[in-house]
């Protein structure tokens, strides 16, 4: 899991919270799936910038997963605005899945 960030402490807090956000089809959380590319914090303007992806651009649950990430971060960091960009370049690949995620999928 290599999430790009400018604030390690807050990023770690965010990733712990985001482990509750599941991709409903896979049944695995967005962090272990490797869907979160970057989490950057602007303390002056109270902004969180998230760059994330989905396992497939065709995901019918895409909006829901994205909204879930946004709500979770807004709940955790009260007073912050969350700006999410869903990108498909670079595309998601199975190499992005964490070790725990692999164990879950191999069951």
């Amino acid at each position, binding site marked *: 899991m290599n999430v790009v960030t400018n604030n390690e402490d807050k990023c770690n807090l965010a990733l712990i919270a985001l482990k509750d956000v599941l991709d409903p089809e896979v049944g695995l959380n967005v962090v272990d799936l490797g869907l979160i590319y970057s989490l950057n914090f602007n303390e002056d303007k109270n902004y969180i910038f998230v760059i994330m992806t989905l396992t497939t651009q*065709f995901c019918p649950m*895409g*909006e829901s997963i994205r909204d879930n990430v946004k*709500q979770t971060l807004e709940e955790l960091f009260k007073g912050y605005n969350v700006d999410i960009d869903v990108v498909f370049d670079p595309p998601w690949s199975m190499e992005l899945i964490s070790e725990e995620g692999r164990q879950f*999928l191999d*069951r």
Partner: protein
Amino acid sequence: MISNSNLVKNTTHKAVIPFYAYAALSFLVATILLVLSSKAFGAHYFQPPILAVTHTMALGWGTMMILGASHQLFPVLIEGKLFSNLLAYLSFALTGSGIPLLVYAFYTFNMNCPAQCGALLINLGIFCFLVNITASLISSKKRNVHAFFALAATLWLFTATIVGFLLVLNFTRPILAKDSLHYLSLHAHLGIGGWFLLMIIGVGTRLIPMFLISKYTRPAILWTIFVLINMALAGFILIFLYAAKRYLFAIPVAAIFTAVGLFAFYCYQAYQKRIRKQTDNQIRISLLSILMMGVPTVLLAVITILLVISQADARLITAYGFSIFFGWITAIIFGMTFKTLPFIVWNKVYHHRAGLGKTPSPKDLHNAKIFNLMSIAYLSGFILFVSGILINYSLLLEVSAFALLLAAALYNWNVYRVIFHTPTK
């Protein structure tokens, strides 16, 4: 702030769910008709009850389900949005009101107003769908092989329903060179090969890898399948209309054989390269449907060989048609219903609650035990009914028709349970 540009916009559930509800009821009606007329399946296929059951299955069950799912999935395939919800509603209203008229007409063999009005309404409904699909494709930013499969399939469907309308008219006033029975195989294969085969392969090769979480994709194989099926259909029409040589039918049959084989190979590769090792029962029955394609494909080859030598047994032809509608098409619909409908309903009920507490998983919206019971009733009913047709054993046909009715009832129970799901607190 949220960047929406890269996300596919879902079609409103109002344009999708009515088709699922209609298709489920149609399947129940078809199995009731099957129970009432199971003995007819031991004789020649051109009989009112068989025509009624076949059109309930082909139009009410298979086509309505695919039309509904297409309104949801086509925007996904083209990474755009559906051109018009109004056309989707019109398509439902017109096709949905035409089907009962046509089925009633076949059951009572009244080829006047009920059949003609029904066929006309169905054609108008399919035309609305064709316009919607074409306009959506034109206004989309991306066009991939799956979208071309869907467009070509819809064109073949419209051709099949136009031919069907002409055949209905031909019953009461001769407008074609020969009687309607002569053109039946042409009409049937435009629908089976052009509509169902192209659409199911086009959408299936997108959905099956997606649900398996497999990154396998080979557009070259899909384009080969696309060309093979379309060439086979064009060749079949030409041979049917202009060549009297029966052995020539072996050419389009060989092309279809190759296309089905390539589709099976594609799905096998996607399965082998899947990331998630566990597969659920919905995916298992979807994969089983691919194997079940082998039954009509083999029967088609046998029928073609027999036709070249002398004459094909009518029971073989009935078994061929039955294994398409009650076998392959029904199995893939069973699997895909519970992979798509729960997500559509979940998005409707829980989308606004994203991140605001625990919600049930989409897959929990249907009852897995009922699904398993349905699968057992269905598979046993299907195998026994095909056997009953082939050996012409009335008791077997009656018992297996009841098993299929049970499967349809359980399917409906689960579908309506999902559709009427109310949010948990």
